[in-house]
Every structure is written in structure tokens, then in C-alpha cells.
């Protein structure tokens, strides 16, 4: 890396982490009050609903703080109008910044389907539990299908990273089939989202942010009538193929 590149990386991190900390500390009293009040006054369902909405708002604030470091470009349709049906957003996964990028989705009540590790993070793990996110590795397939179907029936949108772990680079890993089986069971539309450019923001195994231009491209929803004749294996690979093609288009590698 050149000297000017190092200075830019240094400045990006000197800006982001203190600003992230200050912003988080500033909003945390409102967040805690909101979570407690909604649980006490509205019961568990309203409490979970408002925790999810507040997580979404917190994500929006994190992206605001990130703005000097990473420019985010939205492509495709559906960013400003929530889908009329509850759907499952399926994204590729390159970086730890991906869950925060979900704040760009138009839908308010979002349930993230995550691996074990986000639940083990201090503070953010507790927030994920309060929001009743789905830790897919900590439940049986039957428990996952029951819980996720219930979330869709209650009106929540789901987000999933079917690679299961960060690829860390520009390659796209193999997809797990659980969310596609869920779609086949429930008939929920699946919306593929290709995310490019954040593989170094931060890179896997590091907290050092590199300035980036992140492109998020939302592809047209796949409705039940288009996928119901597919097997789960075919369906997951079909969606993987769509995301892979879109990533190649964005990155000019077709």
C-alpha cells in the first residue's frame, strides 16, 4: 500500500471507531428505554417488534457514521417501497459490515438469520437476543422452520446469508439450503441481494476498515410460482447463480 493509501486508511479508522462509539453511547439510553418500555407496556410481541425497529434505526445511524469511509450505491428496484408480501432477503456475505448494511432494506421489522458468533458478541449479542433473531446453528432444522415461519406469519421480513460464513474475498461460497426450504414450505417470495465492495470493510480477521465503494443490488423477487417446482438444492443454486451473475456484472468480470 502506498503512503497516501496508509494515511487514508488511518484517517478512516480514526474517524469511524470513535464516532461509532460516541454515537452508540449517545443512543443507548434511548434504546434501552425504548426496549424496556415497549416490553413492559406492550408485552413480549410489541417489545420484540420495537427492538427490531430500533435495531434498524441503529443500523441507519451506523451507516451514517460509516458514510465518510464507505460510499453505498443502491441498484435495482425495491429499495424505497417495501414489498407487499413478507419475504426473505438472501444476500452474499463477504464482511462483518453486511448485517449493518441490512439497514438499507426498506422493510421495518427485520429478523436476521445469523450464525452463532453474533449472539456471543458483548452488547450486540444481547440486542440480537432481545430482538429474537434466529441463531440457526443453535437449533434443529424443525425448530428453525417453526420459528422462521412464525416470524413470517407475524409480518416480519427475514434476512439470510446462506453462505453461512464470510467469504472474506470476492468468491461466492456454496449456499446452505435451510432458507430455501423455508421458502418452499411457506411460499414466501425470495429477494436476492448482491453486495459488492465491502470485502475490505473490514476484511475477515481484522477490524481495520478500508475505504470502499459498496454496491448493493436488489434483484427482482422470486415468487412461489417461479420456484415451487424446484428442489431445495436446485432452488438454492438458482439463487446463488443469480447473485453470482449480478456480482460479476457489478465487478465487470463477466
Amino acid at each position, binding site marked *: 500500500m502506498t503512503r497516501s493509501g496508509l494515511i487514508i486508511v488511518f484517517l478512516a479508522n480514526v474517524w469511524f471507531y470513535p464516532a461509532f462509539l460516541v454515537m452508540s453511547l449517545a443512543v443507548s439510553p434511548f434504546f434501552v428505554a425504548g426496549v424496556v418500555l415497549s416490553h413492559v407496556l406492550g408485552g413480549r410481541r410489541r417489545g420484540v417488534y420495537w427492538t427490531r425497529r430500533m435495531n434498524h434505526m441503529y443500523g441507519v445511524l451506523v451507516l451514517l457514521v460509516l458514510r465518510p469511509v464507505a460510499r453505498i450505491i443502491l441498484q435495482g428496484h425495491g429499495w424505497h417501497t417495501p414489498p407487499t408480501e413478507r419475504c426473505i432477503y438472501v444476500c452474499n456475505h463477504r464482511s462483518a459490515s453486511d448485517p449493518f448494511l441490512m439497514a438499507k432494506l426498506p422493510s421495518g421489522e427485520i429478523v436476521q438469520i445469523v450464525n452463532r458468533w453474533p449472539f456471543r458478541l458483548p452488547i450486540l449479542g444481547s440486542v440480537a437476543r432481545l430482538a429474537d433473531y434466529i441463531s440457526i446453528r443453535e437449533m434443529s*432444522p424443525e425448530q428453525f422452520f417453526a420459528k422462521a415461519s412464525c416470524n413470517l406469519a407475524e409480518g416480519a421480513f427475514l434476512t439470510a446469508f446462506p453462505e453461512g460464513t464470510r467469504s472474506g474475498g470476492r468468491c461466492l461460497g*456454496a*449456499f*446452505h*439450503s*435451510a432458507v430455501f*426450504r423455508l421458502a418452499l414450505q411457506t411460499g414466501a417470495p425470495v429477494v436476492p441481494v448482491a453486495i459488492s465492495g465491502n470485502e475490505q470493510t473490514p476484511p475477515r480477521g481484522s477490524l481495520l476498515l478500508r475505504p470502499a465503494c459498496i454496491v448493493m443490488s436488489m434483484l427482482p423477487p422470486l415468487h412461489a410460482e417461479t420456484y415451487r417446482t424446484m*428442489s*431445495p*438444492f*436446485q432452488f438454492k*443454486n438458482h439463487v446463488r447463480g443469480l447473485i453470482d451473475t449480478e456480482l460479476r456484472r457489478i465487478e465487470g468480470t463477466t
Partner: protein
Amino acid sequence: MHSPTEADIIEKVNDVFSETFEIAPDRLVPEARVFEDLGLDSLDAVDLVASLQTTLGVRLRDSDRIRSVRTLADVYALVLEVKREMETETKK
């Protein structure tokens, strides 16, 4: 009834992979890793076992050896082994 040869088993197992998962025949080489190279996950493996049981008439679900399968060659070997065990039991 003649007992199936290794070639018969390989052909039938490959048919299961082609029909159930639509994997191109040229990818079905013995050294292909079932999870990494062919893209199956644990839930797909359940579908695979069900398809193998239906197509080949073998009882794999109860076999602990299914957990040690890594490559397509392991699948061939497991099916062949279980098939032979079943034949031996029938003869007794």
C-alpha cells in the same frame, strides 16, 4: 438375482446425484467432495440418503458410517458395503 457390481453401484449413485440434484455428470468423479465440491449441505444430505434408499434399496439412515462420508468415492464404498451386508443377511 445377480448381485450388483461396483460399476452398477457407481452408475446408480451417479444417477441419484444427477436426478436429485441436477449435478452435471462430468462433475461426478470419485474424488469430488460431497459438501465442498458438489455443494450439498447437511439438509441436502438427508435428501441424498432418502433418494439412495429409494433407488438402491439400502438402509443408510441407521448407519453411523454415513457421518464419515466426505467424497463421492466414500458414498460408493458405503452403498456397496451396506448392499453386501444386506445380501449376506438375506443368505443367512
